[in-house]
């Protein structure tokens, strides 16, 4: 199994998608691979792209993304993606039943394993034969989480996973994520909801224009949103 090491690091990372159009621009950041690290920032600041750099759905045009000091570019990309699972903003349902969806991750998985991972994601095991298209938004997102957990990742990338859900479903996903963290999972969580960021973690990083915000920018972004988040460090005040 691919070992990720203790830290995910971004060293002067740039991603230019067209001449002069840089989505990530000189990003340097270290993320400990334990607990939850929350990335916040305005829409279009590059938060989601930063996540996609972590599992190499994007590769930097300059700089290095590394796990435990090893460049992600030197790792087996398919093994990396199974160890760094990703849940997307909108639930992605493949054609077919919940079982069909889960088997995309691990085609050889038996029903017992599928029910176990569904239970871990707070999805009723009786829904295995339900068409994925018939699930509610919250159920579908939890099914997507279960599908990701089937590959037994060491780290989860959560890309605004609750933004399209109602408050109850949002809270359910947050609680599930916290319980996964209690079991040792590392999570990189992207949100624009500062209250949610505060609920989830003491590590909050503000992203601005494709890089970590300088203190003044972070202060402006965080000011007024939550008195409990340190406007300079971006960390929750204890």
């Amino acid at each position: 199994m691919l070992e990720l090491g203790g830290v995910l690091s971004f060293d002067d990372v740039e991603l230019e998608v067209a001449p002069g159009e840089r989505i990530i621009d000189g990003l340097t950041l270290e993320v400990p691979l334990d607990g939850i690290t929350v990335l916040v920032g305005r829409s279009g600041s590059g938060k989601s792209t930063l996540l996609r750099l972590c599992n190499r759905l994007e590769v930097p045009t300059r700089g290095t993304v590394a796990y435990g000091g090893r460049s992600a570019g030197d790792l087996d990309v398919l093994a990396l993606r199974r160890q760094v699972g990703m849940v997307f903003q909108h639930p992605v349902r493949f054609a077919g039943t919940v079982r069909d969806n889960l088997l995309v991750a691990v085609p050889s998985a038996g029903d017992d394993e599928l029910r176990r991972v569904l239970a871990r994601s707070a999805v009723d095991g009786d829904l295995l034969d339900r068409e994925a298209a018939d699930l509610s938004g919250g159920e579908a997102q939890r099914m997507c989480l279960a599908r990701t957990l089937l590959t037994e990742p060491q780290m989860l990338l959560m890309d605004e996973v609750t933004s399209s859900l109602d408050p109850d479903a949002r809270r359910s996903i947050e609680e599930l994520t916290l319980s996964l963290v209690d079991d040792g999972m590392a999570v990189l969580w992207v949100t624009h909801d500062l209250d949610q960021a505060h609920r989830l973690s003491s590590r909050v990083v503000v992203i601005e224009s494709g890089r970590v915000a300088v203190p003044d920018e972070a202060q402006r972004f965080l000011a007024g949103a939550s008195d409990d988040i340190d406007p300079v460090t971006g960390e929750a005040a204890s």
Partner: protein
Amino acid sequence: MSTTGIGWEGLAASTVLVAVAVGLSLWRGLGLERTLLWASGRAAVQLTAVGLGLGLVLAPDTPVAWAWAWVVGMVVFAAVTVRRRAPEVPDAFALALAANAVVVVVSLGVIFGFGIFPVEARTIIPLGGMMIGNSMTATVVAARRIVGELSDKRSEVEARLALGQPSAEASRPYVRAALRTALTSQIESTKAVGLVFLPGAMTGLVLAGVDAADAVQVQLAIMYLILGSVVTSVTVVSLGLTHRLFTPDHRLVRLIRVDA
């Protein structure tokens, strides 16, 4: 006048239908009169030029190598046409060139290898043209559908990639759907042949005075070969395009969606 010729008078008479089309366009306000006249005139010029060229290539003392050169020209021109009709498909020219080249090698290999037709200029050119022409149309549909499917279903494809699926596996359901669409029209044409329309080769042979039973045999052989050629060409295109649309490290490249 020979039994197969219609003469200039016959050709002139057939333009009455063009006049009818132009008249209908005027009557219904379609605004297609100039296009109809341009298309009809262009077809006349092109076919006349082709006829003159064919006359030279098909002359009894012309080496058969010229016929093969003609086929190579058709392969290249078909690739140019595919690139023009499918601008959003990356490397469409190279893909179509490869697909048509494979089609020519396979189909003409079968035709001449099994002795279905003799290796002569008068068989090489029309048979090559039919295989390439039909494959070209299917290639355009397949290539555009594959790019369209992967563009529309990008989130699904990337969700599969994020689960650790290799690009070939992640793209398979969407490429399969695109290929089914591309092949359906050829399969439907094959099923409807004889019931709804009489295909070109058979019609030509019957008009040329060939016995209907013989014409049917020729037509069936050609239809089966076309069917095989079309499936071959879209398979080559799908393999090449899937390879082109993903990076070696299993990322889907950025795609441009152009509505048909």
